[in-house]
């Protein structure tokens, strides 16, 4: 399945745009998606932490991703 992934904050710069996509086997967990993204975008792994939201909800590492899901990478932001 192909999943469209929205990028926020510094993740936009890391993935090179406001969204990216990933071809994933069905029954992929959020932990697997994170690993996959960090292989593709090593800078993501250096952020120490970032949130993965699925359908506007914080997604725990063991949640499953489905084909119609809207996935977002939300890194921390420091500015003030």
């Amino acid at each position, binding site marked *: 399945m192909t999943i469209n992934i929205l990028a926020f904050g510094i993740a936009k710069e890391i993935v090179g745009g406001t969204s990216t996509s990933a071809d994933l086997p069905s029954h992929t967990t959020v932990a697997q998606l994170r690993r996959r993204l960090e292989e593709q975008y090593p800078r993501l792994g250096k952020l120490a932490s970032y*949130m993965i939201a699925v359908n506007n909800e914080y997604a725990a590492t063991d949640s499953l991703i489905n084909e119609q899901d809207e996935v977002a990478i939300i890194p921390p932001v420091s500015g003030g």
Partner: protein
Amino acid sequence: MVNDIRYSCQVALPGFGTEAQARLNAARVLVVGAGGLGCPAAQYLTAVGVGTIGIADYDVISISNLHRQILYTPAEAGQKKVTVACKKLQQQNPQIQLVAHDVKITSANVMELVGQYDIVLDATDNFETRYLLNDACVLQHKPVVYGAIYQYEGQVAVWNVPYKDTYSPNYRDVFPDANAAQIPNCAEGGVLPTLAGIIGCMQANEVVKYITGTGELVSGKMLLFDALTMQIRVVKIGDVTRTNITEIAATVDACTISAQELKAGLDDNKYTLVDVREISEREAYHIGGLHIPLSKIEHEEFQLPVDKDIVFYCASGRRSAVAATLLSGKVDAKLFSLSGGLKGWRQ
């Protein structure tokens, strides 16, 4: 005394009334950071009649702040933000009490400072202070109204609100840790000034709602605002926190050097300068020395001469402080960070 006419247009709101106004008048709010978020937030909290407002900041006003830090004027460049902010806010509302805290928040003073207030508005510009405020508020059972901005995007949330017999999620539920070396702040990544105003106002809005018990807070969730598309997205985090914060992590401070001291020391050939900015920034302007971007320092891909003390510099003093802290104890030379960065150097 609550001046009825001054507050009449908010007291008239459905679900507000004189009782809500009295609660505002009795409330004590700490605004940490008198910058892009802190200026508008503090102005609205002042206008709305919060009885006691503490402002904590240790920075001075610089010309590059003025586009978004709307309490300040060019004539005030070089003055302490906290002094100027408190003076102007007091003029805006003489009925309230303003308390200036001219301090850098550290693990040593955060508990005492937070302890003096009912609620904290996090308008800081760095992760270290955000985590300190979060952890201190969790330990003292106080809410934090969080706001953060980057380029065209902002985040808002209210952390650590009582929920049943526990508390709503806090900053560490969403971001357990952050790598400051990897995420630029406003000085480096740029920021839309109106975004700072919007997010700062949203924070003040949540403080007013919390104090008066009006409406529904952004707790258990985080609001994301995109100024380019005007889209608001609210991400649900969960009802309760899963963290277990038991103490304040000790902060490590980099040794800093002022622009004045550095200029004098360079004349005597006392320091090796290291520019930790990106190459594009260096090409635009630099003050010499070696060039090792922070990303390389983080991965220890460099060699430093250790015959003299080393001074790291960047645009604002933030990245250079990260560099000096990262290498503390690993390099056989005394390490400094140029306080205020090139911004301070050029003034």
